[in-house]
């Protein structure tokens, strides 16, 4: 079974300013030059400094936030897809 791993790329910069979590694209012509995160998403972005699988990210949310596994898995899935759509993630397919 393939287990895809994800890691944030270096073409985006994260900042927490005046309570807002911002992700800034280095290149202006990026799909999304800048957008905001929820605090949970920001925590996932920080976690994605290292290679992580979706189940691993789900476990992290369940352990650190008041969220059930089903909700965490849904949030992780949506967040990963969002980051993939703007080219903010590297992927690595592996055998699980």
């Amino acid at each position, binding site marked *: 079974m393939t287990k895809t791993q994800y890691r944030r790329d270096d073409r985006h910069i994260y*900042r927490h*300013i*005046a*309570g807002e979590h*911002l992700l*800034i694209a*280095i*290149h*202006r012509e990026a799909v999304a030059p*800048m957008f905001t995160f929820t605090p949970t998403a920001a925590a996932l972005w920080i976690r994605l400094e290292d290679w992580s699988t979706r189940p691993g990210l789900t476990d992290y949310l369940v352990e650190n936030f008041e969220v059930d596994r089903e909700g965490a898995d849904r949030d992780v899935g949506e967040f990963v897809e969002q980051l993939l759509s703007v080219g903010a993630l590297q992927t690595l397919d592996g055998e699980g």
Partner: protein
Amino acid sequence: MSVAPEHVAPSVTLGIGGVRIRFEAAESDLRMRVPFPQTRFVTSADAPADCVVRVRIGEPDPGPNPTFVSGGPWELYPGKNGGDRLAIFAAVGDGVREPVMQADLTPNLDRAELIVHSRYAPGRNFPVHYPLDELLMARLLARRGAVILHASAVSEEGPKGAGAYVFTGHSGAGKSTMVEIAERNGLRVLSDDRTVVAIENEAVFAAGTPWHGSYASGCPDRVPVRAIFLLEQSGADGAIAMSSDRAFSELMVRTVRPMAQRTEHVAVVDTLERVVGSARCAVLKFTPSDAVLDTVRYFAGTDC
């Protein structure tokens, strides 16, 4: 004070926003020609330059594989010894363009070797102006806690010394209109299109640049910033304070960022984060009349 229409010499140093670039001829019969308004930014060669650009005539040939395509007249290529190669192109017709300049930069940007096509240096006079000067300045400024904003800036004297107001906004928002209003009311114009904003020991400064809009001039003064305004034309005048995160977002999309290295992008982000944390920022709703200056001064807390 009169300003020469142009300055021609074997070497010339431009000073913008506290950064100095010296352009010097690598060939004995080559001259650096600085047009107006860059002439207002020519400074003494006595102080050391942050970057020395050695210029010679030749055939620019940056190579086949750019590392970054700006979508404008410049591209980046792999350079020598870990540095970058900046190539500037000009249209030659039928949708074709060719490189007219090629600068090999050292990794820390302290030196550059510039090859210029002879067609771009008529009479062996190399014109020192946009876009090369802005492309180099933006990267050097970023490394020194400064950014170039799409903004106009004006300054005036007060009981506590000179202070600047910076005006930004989308195209047509009124940056040039604010310059016109300010100038006819005796304020000094630093710039009408590109302004350097810098932070030093948590104090924010604005400096003029030669890269202009319709005003066609600029002033090299570096002045403490009293407030930064995002312009919105309206039926009445009013200033509404902006949150730091909104100010950061609004300034970020209006920053000139011809950066090659991630560290330079990070430096720009760091500078803007500090600027919005230190400067008063507001949305300025205004009618194009002199009365808007009262609103500007009131928000900035100016005693003028």
